[in-house]
Structure formats: C-alpha cells, structure tokens
C-alpha cells in the first residue's frame, strides 16, 4: 500500500511536469505578444530578450490604432460575425428540425448528399463563392462577408444529432395538445437544446471572427477589411515595427480571449461531446 502510494505520487509528479511543459508552450506566444505590446523598439530587439517591459504605458496601442483604422476593422468584424452567426443559427435550427422530425420523401438521401458536401474543402468553395459575390454585385461589401456563411451543414448535423435524441413521445404529446410544429420547435426543442446551441454559436462566432482567407478575397477597400485581414495588411504595409504589430495583435485577439474566459465550460463541453474541431 505504501509502495503503491509512493508510485502514485511519483507518476502524478511526472504527469504534472508534462502538463506544465505543455502549458508553457501554449501560453508563451500569448505572453510574448502581450508583453511585447508594451515594450519599446529597443527592448524588443535586444538579445538576450527582455522578459518584462520597463513600463506599461499604452503608447504602442495608440500608435497602432493611428497607423491603421483598427476601430473600423473591429466594427466590420463584429457586423460580419453577428450577422452571419445569427442567421446561420436560425437556418441551422430549422434545417435540423426538418431533417430530424419532419417526414418528407427523400429526407435521408438529401441529408446524406449534404453531408457529403462537407468533404469539399473551403478553399474550393472560395472560387464559386467569389463568382457568386461578383454576379450578385456585393463584392467588397459587408454582405459578401455575411451571406456565404448563413448556413452550415456541420452545425446542422450536430444539432440534428441532439434533436434525434429527443423522444418522439414529447412531439406526439405536444401534437395531441394542439401544438404546431413551429411552436413545438421554439417552445420545447430549442429550449431543451440550449447547451448544444450555445456551443454551436460560440464555435461559429470564433471561426467567423478569425476567418482570414475569405475576407481577403471578398474585400479590397481598407474600409471594408476585417480584423485578421487588417492585421495582415498592417504587418505588410507598416514595415518591421514589431512592438506595434504585437499591440495590434493583442487588440485583435482580446475579444475572443474574453469570450473564451466567459464561455470556457460550454466550449470545452461541446468539443468533448461532439468531437468538434475548433
């Protein structure tokens, strides 16, 4: 027993060393980014590196915000994210309900075909989406950032999985009481699916906020850029001012870090439950 305890402790020490090592690898870039955002030009170029900046003033942030319209980028990002996520959530709920609870001919075939579409990489859709955006005459507008992302097979699949798990007896119970499909969906199913929905919304919001490739292709004017693209452009156009880049990066990721801190439990649960990739 004593020996077992000793072994157990030893193995725990080993596990914690590994975990700490992993944590340092994960946290270090964030640490470097945030401290770097406060350093002076001299401090950031020194070797050996300066770990803690000499002063914590916000000059770098001020310069970065003046050098490029980050406030504009931020608002664009926010509009694109809120717009696409809210419409996408709505269409996802409707589609998941239809594929899970309504009976119509070809339901399984249609759903299987839709699922098969998930295998088409996004990079390929970029071409067709680009043509659509051009022909709809919404190129370089905020609509081009919203409309292509107003439905998602993947999230529909996740939510359908939850709806499938709800016993049909609830549906029939409600039907016998005179409840319409529409009312059943919003009064019974959606409130029950709240944890799944929160996960879907968060994951969708994060991926919208971070999306880079499509905004780069679909927008061209400075005033229509989103944060990730704006940051990239700033790095390219602004030269090698590392401390300003780091300040701009901090501004970009801050909302997501705050969102993550608040909704950590939901995100982790969702990823663990559905095996969802981020």
């Amino acid at each position: 027993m004593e020996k077992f305890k000793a072994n157990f402790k030893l193995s725990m020490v080993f596990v914690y060393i590994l975990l700490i090592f992993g944590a340092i690898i994960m946290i270090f870039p964030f640490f470097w980014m945030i401290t770097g955002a406060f350093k002076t030009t001299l401090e950031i170029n020194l070797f050996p590196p300066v770990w803690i900046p000499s002063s914590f003033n916000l000059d770098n942030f001020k310069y970065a915000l003046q050098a490029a319209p980050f406030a504009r980028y931020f608002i664009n990002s926010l509009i694109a994210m809120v717009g696409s996520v809210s419409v996408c959530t709505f269409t996802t709920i409707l589609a998941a309900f239809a594929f899970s609870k309504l009976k119509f001919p070809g339901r399984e075939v249609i759903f299987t075909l839709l699922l098969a579409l998930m295998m088409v990489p996004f990079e390929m859709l970029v071409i067709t989406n680009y043509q659509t955006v051009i022909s709809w005459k919404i190129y370089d507008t905020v609509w081009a950032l919203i409309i292509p992302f107003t439905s998602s097979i993947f999230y529909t699949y996740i939510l359908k999985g939850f709806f499938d798990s709800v016993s049909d007896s609830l549906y029939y119970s409600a039907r016998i009481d005179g409840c319409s499909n529409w009312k059943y969906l919003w009064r019974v199913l959606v409130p029950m699916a709240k944890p799944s929905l929160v996960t879907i919304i968060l994951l969708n919001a994060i991926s919208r906020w971070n999306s880079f490739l499509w905004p780069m292709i679909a927008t061209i004017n400075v005033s229509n850029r989103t944060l990730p693209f704006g940051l990239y452009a700033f790095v390219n156009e602004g030269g090698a001012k590392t401390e300003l880049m780091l300040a701009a990066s901090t501004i970009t990721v801050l909302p997501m870090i705050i969102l993550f801190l608040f909704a950590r439990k939901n995100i982790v649960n969702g990823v663990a439950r559905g095996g969802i990739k981020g």
Partner: protein
Amino acid sequence: MKVKIENLVKRFSDNTAVDNFSCEIESGELIALLGPSGCGKSTMLNMLSGILMPTEGKIYFDDDDVTYLAPEKRGVGLVFQNYALYPHMTVLENICFPLEIQKVPKEERIARAKKMAELVHVETMLDRRPGQLSGGQQQRVAIARALVKTPRLLLLDEPLSNLDARLRIEMREEIRRIQQETGVTTIFVTHDQEEAMSISDHIVLMKKAVLQQYAAPQELYDEPMNSFVADFLGNPPINKTFGVMNRGKIVLDGGCEVAYPKAVDLDDGHRVILSMRAEAIVVEGPSEAMAEGVIEQTYVMGKEVLAFVKLGDFSVRAYIPAELQLTKGQTVKLSLKNKGVFVFDEETGERLK
C-alpha cells in the same frame, strides 16, 4: 364519452398490427387493453389518439366519426410510458402547456393547473423540474397534464411499467381514484394481467392483432372464451392438459382417464384441451373421484400445500389441505369443481364446455 370501434384494421407494410377489431366502450369506464408484447395494443391506442391512421374501419366518439380526425381535434389526453414531460419546464409550466396552446388566459390557466395538481397530489412541487421528481411523481404530473384540458377520453400507454413494484400498486390505485373522481372514460395499455384485473371495469384482451375477449375481469377469469384467455389470466398459471374423448371420458396423453361429467356428450376421438385452475382441483375430497394421479412434489406454503400431481404425461398444480399429510409417490383421487375447469377444442382453441 362512449367509444365505438368498428372493424378496425391497421396494416403496416408487411404485417397486420390490428385485425378486424370491434368493440363498444361505455362512458366513464376504466378499460384495460391487455395482451402480450406485440399484440397490437399500443397500435390500438395510437389509433384512438390519432397518432396513427387506421387502414380500414371506423372509430366513433359518442356519435362523431373521428377515424381520420387530427389528434388535436379529438379531445384526448395521452400519457406516454416515459411520461414525455418537458424537462426544461417546471411542473406548473408542464401542466399549463396544453392550456397555453389553447390560448387560455394566464390566470385561468394557472388556476386550472393548480386544481389539477391537487387532484393528483403534486401541489407541493409546482416549481420543481421533472428531473427532480421520482418516477411516481412524474407519472402524476403527466396525468395532470393530460387531464387539465378536460379531455373526453384519457389514454395511458403502459402507465405503470416504469415504476418499481411497490409504487406500481400505489399508482394503479391512484389511477383508479383519479379516474373515478373525474369520471373520464379511460383506456390504459398493459401486459400485466394482475394490473388489468385489479382496477379495470372491463378488459380488452388481444393476441396477435385479434380481439380475444371483451368482458369484465371476473367474467374473463370465470368464463374464458378460448384457451388463450384461460392461459393468459390467473396466477399460478392454469393447468393445461391435452387429451382425446373416449366413451364420454377424456383420456389424457400418457393414459390417464378423466371422467369430467360436463364433457360426457363430446364425440369419441375429438382432440381436446382440458384446462384446470389449481383451485378447481380437489384432492381426496368428499365428492366422487374423477381421476387418479401420483403426487410428484409438494411445497409447504403455510395454510395449504402446493402439490404437483402427475396426470398422464402432464404435471398439474393443485392445492391440498396441510392436514392431509400426503407424501411423494402416493396415489391420490382427484375431483374437479364446476367452476375453473374448461374444455377447449385442441385445433381451434374454442371453448367447448
């Protein structure tokens, strides 16, 4: 409300779940739909509620033809086996829900729901969620939700099968009480004969999609119309023996002669089933012996002894008074009572005597 079912048929693609079913249910009665698993009793219930549409036949509620009426227009309350409570709503919200759909004003809704909660004794847990209730309490809430819109017909699908043994007896009495207090015509599905016998006014006994007998519990037990009904009811199960008629006596397979007076006029050579309830067999009684058998095994049960008696190839259960002190291997004389002994045709299973 009276329910009349005429020649109802439900066919699924490759099998018939309900076949040519007819019966009339009187207003205010508690009816048990009884039968082994897969006999079509739940299909029957779903056709009454409107979830399933019949293939042929008619269903009348009083004089209204409701055969193809949408479920919400029938005025039925339905309680599912798994209760189907909405997990995100409180007990009060659950009971209110059917009224909310009917757009009953909020105050009236709550007043009616509270009254119903009192009827089923869940008035102290209105703010709880279904997950915080025991199975029996969930059942009560589900019944309250089904009754709150004052349905013309209450349907319960296997209402007791998810409860443990003690709760089951409590809840079946509760169902009887609630049904009598509200006076609503009620049909419940069960595969447990004891449940059906104990609380219902009439029993609909089904087997393989076909109605076997529709009668009051005692009548079903005393006068089964065929050998399936006799086999299905009673505990211990009825003693079933096979034999052939020979000069007014039944000769059981294995050679034991039974001189059952009621069977005396059956034709020679007719294959029959002789079914005897354990309590209808008298061992070493004062009346004239009808057969002889050998005691195979005895089990002391207190006031009486359960004995297995060998009759031909068959071993039948009989109760013998403890003071008789019979032992294994002893030959005994048996006589049969008039009540609880049935002769069926072996081929059709129909009652002969």
